[in-house]
């Protein structure tokens, strides 16, 4: 994670006399998932769209692979950058397969290659190609549609994929399924992803690094752990209240891990089947029968959560 793929260099966007992004600088490393998080109107979408030049900055430079974006032909630039919209925006006149093969076709990949890839990708997201290839978008559920939306963006093996609140219109279960999917695809292809959300929990689950935005500026860019442990200012810590989790029961256990509420303990017999994608609510149910439960974490194997630690977290939650 050393190579800078995208560099936003002191960019500003000013509409008439309203500054919506001001003097923002940000480096996106090749292969990382960078999450832009911030409340509504903080300039996330504006910043994201300046990367593929759907919006041109008023000041500053955007560099892609070390070269200023205005040195690229617009089409060449955009063909290297995938895009996933909150509105999904599958083309209603094209089948699932046609939607997915759109960009590879524009890139003049061979028909046979594309067909095989479409089938592989559909299987990857648990949609049977035989059944789904020739469906029209309006014959799909919202979750299925967004899965196709994601495939469409990744299909052409893009260097970077921009995702603007892709899951905020979906219900919580679908949302977490698709978050897992994005993680999986990211690991498989190593694609760089810039992911916009205003849900801090989503940011914590997905981000290799998180950039917290407010009023068109970046307050802090850091790993999830650092953000949770050492928020740069009160606004950053307040962002946690902006989580999609309405109350403490909806908080993901990953947050407890990041905050250090999970303990190391050598238990050879796992208790329960919770992991860091489970919620506090689920943990409470299990802890009603046990004093300590085990949690499978992403990076550091099995950890344990005790009643005492959970109570401590809940009591401190109000103050976060």
């Amino acid at each position, binding site marked *: 994670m050393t190579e800078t793929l995208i560099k936003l260099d002191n960019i500003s966007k000013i509409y008439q006399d309203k500054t919506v992004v001001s003097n923002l600088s940000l480096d996106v490393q090749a292969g990382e998932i960078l999450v832009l998080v911030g409340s509504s109107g903080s300039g996330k979408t504006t910043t994201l769209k300046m990367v593929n030049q759907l919006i041109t900055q008023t000041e500053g430079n955007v560099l892609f692979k070390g070269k200023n974006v205005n040195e690229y032909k617009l*089409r060449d630039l*955009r*063909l290297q950058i995938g*895009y996933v919209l909150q509105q999904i925006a599958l*083309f209603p006149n094209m089948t699932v397969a046609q939607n997915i093969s*759109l960009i590879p076709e*524009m890139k003049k990949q061979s028909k046979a290659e594309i067909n095989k890839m479409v089938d592989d990708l559909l299987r990857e997201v648990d949609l049977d190609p035989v059944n789904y290839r020739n469906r029209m978008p309006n014959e799909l559920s919202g979750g299925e549609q967004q899965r196709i939306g994601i495939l469409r963006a990744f299909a052409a093996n893009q260097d970077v994929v921009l995702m603007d609140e892709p899951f905020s219109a979906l219900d919580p279960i679908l949302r977490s399924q698709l978050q897992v999917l994005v993680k999986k695809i990211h690991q498989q292809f190593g694609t760089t992803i810039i992911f916009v959300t205003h849900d801090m929990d989503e940011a914590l689950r997905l981000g290799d690094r998180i950039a917290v935005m407010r009023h068109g500026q970046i307050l802090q860019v850091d790993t999830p752990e650092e953000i949770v442990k050492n928020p740069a200012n009160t606004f950053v810590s307040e962002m946690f209240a902006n989580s999609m989790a309405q109350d403490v029961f909806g908080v993901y256990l990953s947050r407890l891990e990041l905050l250090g509420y999970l303990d190391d303990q050598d238990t050879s017999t796992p208790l329960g089947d919770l992991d860091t994608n489970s919620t506090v609510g689920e943990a409470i149910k299990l802890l009603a029968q046990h004093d300590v439960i085990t949690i499978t974490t992403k990076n550091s194997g099995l950890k344990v959560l005790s009643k005492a630690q959970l109570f401590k977290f809940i009591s401190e939650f109000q103050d976060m």
Partner: protein
Amino acid sequence: MSHFIQTLISERFNLFNAILQHIEISLVALVIAIIIAVPIAISVLNHKKIAYVITQFAGVLQTIPSLALLGLLIPFVGIGQVPAVIALVVYAILPIFQNTYIGLTSIDPSLDEAANAFGMTKFEKLTKVQLPIALPTIIAGIRQALVMIIGTATLAALIGAGGLGNLILLGIDRNDNTLTIIGAIAAALLAIIFSALIYVLQKGKLRYSILALLLIVAIPVGNGIYQAVQPKQTTITIAGKLGSEPDILINMYKELIEAKNSNTKVILKPNFGQTSFLFNALKAKQIDIYPEFTGTVLESLVKVPKGQRDTGISPERLYGYAKKDLKNQFDLDYLPPMKYNNTYSIIVTKAFADKYHLKNISDLRNIESQLHAGFDLEFLNRADGYKGLQEKYGLSVTSQSVDAALRYEALRSGKVNVIDGFSTDSQIRQYNFVELKDNHHLFPVYQGAPLVSATFAKENPEIVDTLNALAGKITDDEMREMNYQVNVKGKSPAVVARNFLVTHHLLGANEK
């Protein structure tokens, strides 16, 4: 019902031709309208104000009554299919433009954003995303335009463009409602069938639809090209007004000309329209010859010095005036007229004439009190109509106005016992009525004669000679009989014309 079927059978060739012409005019107009409206709509997509102005403008065009629009076009493009197609295009542009514009602008903006983000060029976006998504709306506009075109195209017959309007007009002219109804039903069916066809095409693949449309248009265009590159014989175009009489006459012209001038081909345009259309077409050299009445020339075509209008002038002098005025004012040559005089006439039943020994109009005075007249409204009000009867013949009768179409029926059924009519009306022959002689020369003379341009006459002396063979020929009775054969017996004008020429030795029986 049996009359309906009979008419359908006897007019099947006319109907078939009219349908083909109708389809041709309509589809050519439709395709031109699409070619104009769709690209304009695409090019103003991002210019809301211009789109608004265009919509308003097209809307204004659409409020012009179709007849007025056709009339306005005549000075610029003459008559025939060209002005008809132009007028139809003018009407069709609005629905196609509007639907294309609305279809393209109401596309979900997020789709537009996606297309842009994926690096599509404007053209790719248009062909892969915008047009396919807007297609149902655009097609709806095209269908709307087509239905309107097919309906309005019936008016094209008024300026000689042919089509189903011809049948409708012919029906009105012959007072044959069945013919009018057949024309109207055929037009309605065409609209329904083509509307359904477009619907079916829309469900199919786009490229097939375009192919099908192109094919349909290519046929008339190809035909035009074929005609253009054909070895050029001399072709002469002869047109005639609406009705059986001019139709028979121009068929005689054709037979005679083609028999005597082997290298000449005559194209006929029967039922070509009203007097002013034909006259303008002749001046514009779109047609070469058409038969015109002396009375009509003096009454509506030339500026007549006072004095010529006096009634009672001999037919020879009247023709002389008409010929001189046409030459001086329009540089046209008016060839010598035929014998028959198609003017107003006073008509009674045979029984009535026999009973009171009626021969002349003046004989009516003796039985004034017994007369119950049914006169057409126009006749009642014309100076050379009923008013003239009162002045010149001192005749004063109880009269009621009867619609021109119903006069003969009223006379036959005895509701009235004297009517006005035209001397060559086929009903006189059909019901064996008697025409009273205008012995005080009240009615103006209407003798038919070929009208050509002076240049044409000079360049084609042999044609002029040929046509002059008809000068002084064809009596009132003969003309009436021929009209009867066509209007009542349902014979084709060409056959009737040929029979006449052969029996009167104007044409050898084997000649052709």
